[in-house]
């Protein structure tokens, strides 16, 4: 490392790089940058690295084969080993609620976090760094339907996450429904872990991938993955129903059965095709939403994706539109674990070059860019195939809750749009409180935006939240004197 960098660190107590998120993209970025000589802080809400994809049980659970619930565990093991051998400062249990520009002289960022298992404010922490890599991942997109608030209805990714880390199932007989390739992975995990999966219900159709031949041919690993899941589902006698959706959940205190209805090409339910399937749980999800509020709060440019979600607009080296702020993985568009690794490493290399004042070049960078382009093309095809059709609101009844936190029904949103003239999600929110509760619209945002557009093209929600996670007032009060985590003395 050049003398100038170390001197700067010593005088300012700065990391060269703060990475937010220790999933596949963040790990790859942190390790790549540290191996090139940067001082790196890696913050994550979880106590373990791996993010959602490589969620795994705590050591006390003594899982001798955690890889049984994962694909490509060796890639993660390798990154974990490199992390252990590196100088990266891993800060687990840190919930980042905001990133701001340093208020003193100098061009740096302040990353504000609260610690504790669920960020309940054990102590506020501030990490200062010259560059920030946002590897914040994604969360699941949900579309409401009658009965989706009943206990036993869980996110498809949520069921997978609870299985991977807690080794538990939401029920013994679990229907998996929604749209997107994650459903196949979830169904095969649940079946392998002993659940009966009577059906996987996919609202779109896999044949639509055939309209994207180039994306398929250049990403053979995706076809292999699909075949692996397909074979597992066959082995467990799981039926896959395409062009269908769960349009109602039955039960009083918990799930007892679901109604599966065929859909037309616009996702409108076809009358008279409803079939009841007995089950005690439903795992449901309609793809993933990039988690980008830390970046949008700083004014980063976003782009709309073919599935109606919004991601960060990035340059060819993973830079956002704001200098010094970078992103990798799902925050730039949902594309899977291999894309996350690729982008993380590319970002790590590019940030190191900028901090060290050296040019970015070389065969490795060219190869990473090539791989990224190929996988981004597949991600776009995937988003197009699984984009929600305009007819899904026909599943709703007036008494169906759309906003789970504030218990705002479809009828009230309809009233705000039809009678009170709301034309966008924000106006609906102001009139009904939809999206104003605990989750700040993470669960209902996509649905509300769609309902506000009255069947037209929905403008994706802006993902603007001043606080990325709730912060106790005591943590804000202590802002003047937070614990500042600084890099260790390089000598």
């Amino acid at each position, binding site marked *: 490392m050049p003398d100038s960098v170390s001197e700067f660190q010593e005088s300012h107590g700065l990391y060269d790089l703060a990475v937010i998120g220790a999933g596949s993209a963040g790990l790859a970025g942190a390790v790549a940058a540290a191996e090139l000589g940067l001082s790196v802080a890696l913050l994550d809400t979880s106590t373990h690295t791996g993010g959602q994809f490589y969620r795994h049980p705590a050591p006390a659970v*003594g899982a001798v084969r955690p890889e*049984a619930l994962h694909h490509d565990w060796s890639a993660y093991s390798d990154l974990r080993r490199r992390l252990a051998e590196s100088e990266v400062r891993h800060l687990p249990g840190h919930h980042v609620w905001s990133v701001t520009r340093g208020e003193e002289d100098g061009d740096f960022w302040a990353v504000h976090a609260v610690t504790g298992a669920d960020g309940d404010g054990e102590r506020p922490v501030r990490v200062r760094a010259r560059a920030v890599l946002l590897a914040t991942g994604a969360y699941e997109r949900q579309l409401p339907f009658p009965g989706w608030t009943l206990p036993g209805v869980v*996110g498809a990714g949520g069921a997978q996450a609870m299985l991977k880390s807690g080794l538990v199932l939401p029920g013994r007989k679990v229907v998996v429904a929604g749209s997107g390739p994650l459903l196949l992975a979830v169904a095969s995990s649940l079946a392998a*872990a002993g659940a009966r999966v009577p059906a996987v219900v996919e609202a779109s159709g896999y044949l639509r991938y055939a309209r994207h031949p180039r994306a398929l041919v250049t990403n053979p690993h995706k076809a292999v993955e699909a075949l692996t899941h397909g074979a597992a589902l066959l082995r467990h006698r799981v039926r896959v129903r395409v062009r269908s959706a769960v349009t109602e959940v039955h039960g009083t205190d918990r799930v007892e059965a679901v109604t599966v209805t065929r859909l037309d090409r616009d996702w409108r339910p076809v009358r008279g095709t409803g079939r009841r399937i007995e089950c005690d749980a439903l795992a449901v999800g309609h793809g993933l939403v990039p988690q980008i509020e830390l970046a949008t709060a700083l004014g980063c440019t976003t782009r709309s994706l073919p599935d109606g979600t919004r991601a960060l607009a990035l340059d060819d080296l993973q830079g956002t539109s704001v200098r010094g702020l970078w992103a990798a993985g799902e925050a730039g568009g949902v594309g899977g674990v291999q894309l996350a690794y690729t982008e993380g490493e590319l970002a790590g290399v590019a940030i190191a070059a900028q901090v060290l004042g050296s040019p970015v070049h070389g065969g490795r960078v060219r190869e990473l860019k090539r791989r990224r382009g190929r996988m981004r093309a597949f991600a776009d095809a995937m988003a197009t195939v699984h984009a929600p059709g305009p007819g899904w609101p026909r599943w709703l009844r007036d008494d169906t809750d759309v906003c789970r936190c504030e*218990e705002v029904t479809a009828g009230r949103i309809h009233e705000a749009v039809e009678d009170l003239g709301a034309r966008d999600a924000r106006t609906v929110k102001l009139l009904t409180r939809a999206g104003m509760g605990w989750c700040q619209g993470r669960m209902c945002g996509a649905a509300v935006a769609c309902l506000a557009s009255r069947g037209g093209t929905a403008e994706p929600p802006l993902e603007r939240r001043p606080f990325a996670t709730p912060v106790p007032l005591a943590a804000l009060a202590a802002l003047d004197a937070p614990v500042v985590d600084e890099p260790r003395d390089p000598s």
Partner: protein
Amino acid sequence: MARTPADLVGAQPDPPFPVTFDGRTVTALHGQSVAAALWGAGILAWRTTRNGGRPRGAFCGIGQCYDCLATINGEPNRRACLVPARPGDAITTQEGHGRAGLGV
């Protein structure tokens, strides 16, 4: 075919420990979240909503939806899917916003 998730990954956990849910004893494993311990005992709901008083439990499983809020050892609004279960924890159903004691 594996019969349980624990079989699948060859889990050899530390001995389980008791926690209580609304006074009833439930067994948890070290390293499990409160939500996982409750799911493991077949309990899917541990909160009632503010307006409708309807039951809710873990939904997103990753700390995003806040549907799994529980009162843990007297402290309301803890995200049960993130908080690790500890021996002797008293988990109680959270009613409404969980601040009934303050009268707000």
